[in-house]
């Protein structure tokens, strides 16, 4: 219990620290004192105030919320597939969502319709469900978790290839945006998008939290869960829907973000030394937020003024964790 409280405190402190750093650092460094003043006085008239309130704050909020959402999606998928290296990106869910969003955008552009956030989420959700459906078909046939991951990566590649194809030939000035987006970035997110994503993500978070009891039973295996009285089919549908919704939401706003969804739950489990959903659901969310803020900070500031795509940074930190897991799980792996 104490360990968990301490771990929550550490994550909370990191979140605050990274938030402040994110506000401070950028193409124009705003001194800390100035940052505090602007936050206190709600000053959005001065140049620094404008930067903080209209650019950095929404971006910060989006990075935290979407990072959390992605980590939670990863945790739900890992629980569902009982596979520690499952996640929205490696299973191709993010790429599926990306493809659908790209198609929808192009379709919209061709007809002169500007997609709003809700439509983007819906399109991404359909794409995510499509990929998820493919993965479920495959997982019904193969028991080995490595094969499942390989299939997911393949689906991801196919979706990305189609997306690239579509983007390449849909030559329109606006496609440049789409191109940037399809690599994954938080740049350009404004308050109106944050106002959509926050209630959406938190609603899903609460629903997931309410599932923590059957989820903990499910961690022992399907047969035991069934014997304990879990309504398996209903529970499974909920897990799929919730994790797809989260992945879709992230993709709709920030494009595909690699490895964060796989690595964060794993790191959080180690930090908290438990896999109990009732702890892990809030913890993963917090951990994902911290991880994402950290990566976004690096993405913005490492080669400033050039901005890296967020996936570039998350891959550098996330992929080694996944490799480490694959190696260390070999021993415990049964399939």
């Amino acid at each position, binding site marked *: 219990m104490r360990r968990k409280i301490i771990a929550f405190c550490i994550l909370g402190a990191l979140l605050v620290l990274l938030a402040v750093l994110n506000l401070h650092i950028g193409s124009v460094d705003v001194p800390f004192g100035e940052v505090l003043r602007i936050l206190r006085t709600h000053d959005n008239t001065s140049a620094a105030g404008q930067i903080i309130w209209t650019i950095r704050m929404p971006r910060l909020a989006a990075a935290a919320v979407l990072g959390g959402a992605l980590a939670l999606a990863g945790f739900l998928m890992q629980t569902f597939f*009982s596979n520690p290296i499952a996640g929205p990106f490696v299973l191709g869910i993010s790429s599926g969502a990306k493809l659908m969003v790209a198609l929808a955008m192009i379709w919209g552009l061709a007809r002169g319709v500007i997609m709003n956030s809700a439509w983007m989420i819906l399109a991404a959700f359909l794409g995510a469900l499509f990929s998820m459906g493919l993965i479920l078909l495959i997982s019904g046939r193969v028991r080995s978790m490595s094969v499942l991951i390989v299939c997911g990566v393949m689906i991801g590649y196919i979706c990305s290839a189609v997306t690239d194809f579509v983007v390449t030939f849909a030559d329109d000035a606006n496609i440049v945006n789409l191109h940037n987006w399809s690599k994954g970035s938080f740049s350009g997110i404004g308050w109106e998008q944050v106002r959509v994503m926050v209630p959406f993500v938190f609603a899903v978070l609460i629903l997931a939290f309410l599932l923590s009891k059957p989820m903990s039973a499910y961690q*022992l295996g399907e047969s035991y869960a069934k014997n*304990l*009285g879990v309504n398996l089919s209903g529970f499974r549908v909920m897990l799929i829907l919730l994790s797809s919704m989260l992945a879709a939401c992230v993709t709709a706003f920030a494009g595909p973000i690699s490895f964060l969804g796989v690595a964060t739950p794993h790191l959080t489990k180690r930090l908290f030394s438990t896999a109990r959903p009732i702890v892990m659901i809030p913890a993963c969310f917090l951990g994902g937020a911290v991880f994402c803020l950290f990566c976004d900070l690096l993405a913005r500031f490492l080669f400033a003024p050039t901005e890296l795509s967020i996936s570039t940074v998350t891959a550098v930190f996330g992929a080694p964790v996944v490799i480490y897991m694959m190696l260390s799980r070999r021993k415990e792996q049964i399939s």
Partner: protein
Amino acid sequence: MTEKRIRLETRSLDVGYAKDKAVVRDIGFTVRAGEVLVLLGPNGSGKSTLLKTLARQLDRLSGTVYLKGEDLHQMAAHEVARQMSLLLTDRPRAELMTCREVVEAGRYPYTGHLGILSREDREVADRCIRRMGAQELADRPFYALSDGQRQRVLLARALCQEPEVLLLDEPASYLDIRYQLELAQAMRSLAKEDGLSVIVSLHDIEMTRRCADRVLCLKDGRVDRIGAADEVLTQEYLEKLFGLAAGSLSMPKEKFEHYTRAGGKRLRMGYTTGTCAALAASAAAEKLLNGVWPASVSLRTPKGLRVEVTPEELRDGSDFASCGVRKDAGDDADVTDGALICAEVRLTGEPGIRIGGGKGVGTVTKPGLDQPQGEAAINSVPRRMITEAVSGICRAADYEGGIAVTVFVPDGEELAKKTFNPDLGIEGGLSILGTSGIVEPMSVQALTATIALELRQHAAQGEKRVILTPGNYGETFIKEQGWDRLGVSVVKCSNFIGEALDEARLQGYEEVLVTGHIGKMVKLAGGIMNTHSREADCRRELFTAHAALCGAGRNVCEKLMACATTDACLAVLEEEGIREDVMRHLLDAVSAHLEKRAGGMRISAAVFSNERGLLGTTQGTDRLLAEWSGCAPEE
């Protein structure tokens, strides 16, 4: 005995994976409370399919399963979860879970929306962990367990659901022989002591023999046979069931291999002379009533373990049969280990079973023992075991006449000289004894470690008071006196009274009551803190010395020195009318020695004998007991 309640019942049940392809058809059986039903059959006969259907993992094809009279497949999932739990073959994933968390997962049907455990839930989990002896595993990560330990934890988890029916699918696979035995014992005790109905699928005949009350045999898509284990598990039938050529299944007699663990040591258990006598008697009775010698005989000891042996030295005539069974003392060094315990059985006219002692079985010559003076030294539990075994055979053979059983031990007279029988007043041979039928060996080191462990456990719960007593007599006496209701833990310390006191002091106990039989307690008056007779005797000497100090004359002292038992000493003192005085004198000495060893703990002692009850207490005992019962008299 009234028939126990039916817990689970199936009627014309068909099970399988597809409607038109039933794996097993028309299954009908009942399982009662406290019963172990084994599903046995060759691979692919449908054991697991049936079990999965009972567990609702599979839908039934047709027919009905009743769980306590209700249609199982119509019941709500959480209702079933509170009445039936599972143990499956596959290793559950339990990432980063300690064993305690795995066990606590069994509380699922009882917890609220978020699955947060209440204090009662935790207590139930704790109790289940203790029940399965998995305390030392509780905080270890589940994935790090060995197969056998894992099954123990999973059983605890299953228990944590507080079920009435327990389903186990091939739980003995991957287990080595030691864990198989442990598992079999666990299943039996859950059925017998906790009254659970256990349904278990097994493919191993030996394992089935160890735990089954009844066996349901599946073959060729149907129930081939269902019946009591002893009736079903014959060589002939099993060969047929598994499709083996006649004679190919050799049924070796089960070697008696059970182990006890004490203080981290593993010691093999054995069986008592009483068990041997009952086995020999039942073999001889079988020969006499059925005409053939059985290849092996078996019985279930009062402790619950089954002993199966091959009788030796077979002899028979027109009106008698006799044979012997070798005693196996396990890892308990004992002069009787390997001795042949024989029984001769004759038919008699008058109904009933009479038991007597022959050559090599001692005769009781002094009072105070299990049997009255003049009787053969065959204690009451072995007598009961012999009677039960023989009368069972009589019933099976429809024999209504009487039987006379004479127990004899060919080397008994020689062997007895190396025992304490001569001192106890048992002459001419060995005693036939044993209360559980099983010899549970205990090494000295292991014993003291066990005592220390028990003291530590109670101390860990904050207890400051303890009652120490050497053994079973003491426990009975404590119950008679009602001291077990004082809320003070009773710790059996065997002969290691000194060690127990040292440990109690180390663990921070403040008040100790030592109570024991006079035969042990009198030694404390001489400062003998290990009361095993191997260490020192001195009982007569102490009686004599204290009697002399109380004014007994020389002839009384001589009489005392000639006594065989402490009860005999007490009789002499009573004759002289100085028992009270001498007891007080002795108890003062006991008190002085105990206080010296107790090093600051408040210590009292109470002494009794089986014949005379409470003989006396040290000063301050009454006050201590009054305080413990919460009604301390005013100063």
